[in-house]
């Protein structure tokens, strides 16, 4: 049996090659291959190239099943940046790679856990989009409990 190679295309039109038997760990790709043989390029319009490179790194370095759990953990541990991890989780969700998504989400939760409000905003590059009036409304909402 010859090893077939698939080509994945990221959002920014970069091409990545990956062997088919590794790529089909993604349920989404597996279904695509089943449907039309996937002879041509598989477009992934929601995944940018940096994230796709990570996903492919993950798929390529797959370990023996019993070491898999540790490997996924280590893989996400090496990526300490919350936005990167969230992108990875989103890509894993799109590609339906459950283990990677679970691990990435768990890592994000672990990282956010000890953060203060400001630190979360900073790490995620989220701006506080609420007006002072809304802030006050939130404070007042549960005033009855205090």
């Amino acid at each position, binding site marked *: 049996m010859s090893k077939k190679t698939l080509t994945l295309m990221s*959002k920014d039109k970069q091409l990545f090659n990956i062997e088919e038997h590794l790529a089909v760990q993604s349920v989404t790709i597996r279904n695509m291959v089943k449907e039309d043989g996937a002879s041509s390029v598989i477009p992934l319009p*929601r*995944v*940018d190239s940096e*994230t796709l490179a990570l996903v492919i790194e993950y798929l390529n370095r797959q370990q023996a099943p019993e070491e898999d759990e540790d490997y996924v953990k280590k893989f996400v541990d090496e990526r300490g940046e919350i*936005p990167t991890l*969230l*992108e990875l*989780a*989103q*890509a894993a*969700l799109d590609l339906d790679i459950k283990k990677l*998504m*679970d691990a990435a*989400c*768990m890592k*994000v*939760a*672990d990282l*956010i*856990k000890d*953060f*203060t*409000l400001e630190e*979360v*905003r900073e790490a*995620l*590059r*989220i*701006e*506080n*989009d*609420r007006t002072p009036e*809304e802030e006050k409304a*939130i404070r007042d909402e*549960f005033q009855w*409990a*205090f």
Partner: protein
Amino acid sequence: MGKTPNWLQMPDEIMGGMIFQRLGAVEILTSVQKVCRNWRRICKDPAMWKVIDMNNRYKGLNTDVYEKLTKQAVHRIRGELIEITLHSFGTDDLLNFISRWYLCSTFFYLPLFSFIIIHAHRQLCENLGEIEVYKILKFVVLFVVLNGNLVRSSSKLKSLCLVKCYSITGNGLVHALRRLPCLETLDLSYISIDAENIKVIGQSCPLLKSFKMKTLFMECDGDAFAIANSMPALRHLQLFDSTITDDGLKALLHGCPHLESLDLSDCSYLELDGDLEKLCRERIKDFNFTPLSEAGCMCGPGGCTAYQDYKLSVSPSLWDFDYHSLSD
């Protein structure tokens, strides 16, 4: 970088269910929900609050703050709460809050509705005549009756876990549990409840399948008799560091015929005389007890009032064990 991150499109279930819920209720209430509008929207979804775990073990925050946070969390989910854990804080008042009936919205409508009807009554009589007014009144009565039924349907709470909630009293607990008839799992660790409370709990929660208890009272076999008496549907029972003796165990075997697992760790008054251990292993799939360190019970089995009650309630024909020979 200027580009919008893809993860902002992440479905709410993933963001809420996979990430936020792992953080725990306290983090969500104190920080996550304040980050931005989108996160707040996700955190307000009642689906996030079906299971609430409030643990004050490590943080050691002011228990008052914890209590208020719990009220917020419970308020979000209204009557749909399924599971709640309180660790190292909590009062009777909080339990009362958790178990209260959540259909005030229909209550609010009722006065409004009657107000409209009364004021419209004269007008209607003039325009429609008696029969038409009757039809409308019938509809109103139906509405009220239906609402009455809704009001009666109380909390859906299935699992309640209270660990080291020293401020919760037996009476407060019983009062709350009366309003939680759907409860299936109850974990009371280091809570001061007595045999009488256990009996009422058993009667209030007929669906109770799993019960775990580490009481602060030394009740001899009283607890076991109360459990045997009032919780016939139990599947799983754990009694830690209990003063249960062989008599109590026999009562349990008899009173809870569906037991699948029984854990009697650190019960140092158990002797497992004769065939009792064999009987337990035959009857219960998962029977666990740590060997006794010291034999003897401080009070004879005949001395417990709960024991007397128990004997009275079980007809002799059903009962093979002879207590008097054991107490000698």
